[in-house]
């Protein structure tokens, strides 16, 4: 059963990723990307990592995809039609992709990852979101507060960079 679930999720992810690359319509491409993210999120749930699965949905399928569609709302769509599907440098992308696949296959071979272990729980038992909270707020409290400062700097940086245009 778990194998079946895994293959369905893998199929969703791969079809979504292919759709993102192949689709000529930028809107459809963004929606295919959301499908791929949902597939990845399902894979994280299979690995008993509900927090990362939720992060995948909230940050990637939520924020990032919304931002991309938000930009497209402002962009003129006609510019994108009647263009080549791939840009001339796609060959380098193919080389990199094949290289990465070979690398991952070599790793899977080296660590003897075989398909019969699909869907088996390889991590901690039960909800580890609570454990993340426990570690984050006790042991790694200082780095956690530093995260807030990094977020603060990102926002201040955005305002400082655009200040000139805002005040005109």
């Amino acid at each position, binding site marked *: *059963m778990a194998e079946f679930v895994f293959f369905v999720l893998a199929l969703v992810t791969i079809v979504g990723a292919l759709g993102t690359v192949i689709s000529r319509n930028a809107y459809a491409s963004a929606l295919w990307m959301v499908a791929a993210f949902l597939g990845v999120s399902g894979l994280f749930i299979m690995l008993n990592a509900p927090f990362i699965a939720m992060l995948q949905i909230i940050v990637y399928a939520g924020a990032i995809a919304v931002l991309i569609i938000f930009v497209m709302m402002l962009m003129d769509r006609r510019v994108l039609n009647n263009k080549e599907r791939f840009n001339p440098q796609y060959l380098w992308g193919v080389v990199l992709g094949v290289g990465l696949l070979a690398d991952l296959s070599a790793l899977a071979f080296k660590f003897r990852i075989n398909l019969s272990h699909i869907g088996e729980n390889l991590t901690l038992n039960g909800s580890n979101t609570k454990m993340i909270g426990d570690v984050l707020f006790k042991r790694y409290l200082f780095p956690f507060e530093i995260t807030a400062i990094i977020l603060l700097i990102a926002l201040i940086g955005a*305002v400082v960079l655009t200040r000139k245009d805002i005040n005109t």
Partner: protein
Amino acid sequence: MLEWLSAGIDIVLVAVIFLLVLGLARYLAPKQHNPFKSQVYECGIFPVAEISQFNIRFFVIAIMFTLFDIEALFMYPWALDFKELGTLGVVEMFIFLFLVFLGWIYAYKKGALEWQ
């Protein structure tokens, strides 16, 4: 096993309803392809020119949206572990929220959120 089965039934049900509604819309809705549809959305006004530059305020809004999204994300493990963390957890979280909120105050004071 049973968990996957119930999740699978749920997903199949959602997919069936989704495709049903989509198919119904495809069958019932009028279809007209015209150049106006692919125009930039301008609240119904005819666009004056092609957009080459858009307002920089959109960028600040987008950054803020992403940041507060990430901020909210940290509240999930906190909420689950709320009882065990006690008062200290509340204080820690509010320091975090305050630090991020400072950025919002800065943006507000600088007028980044105002549209003339």
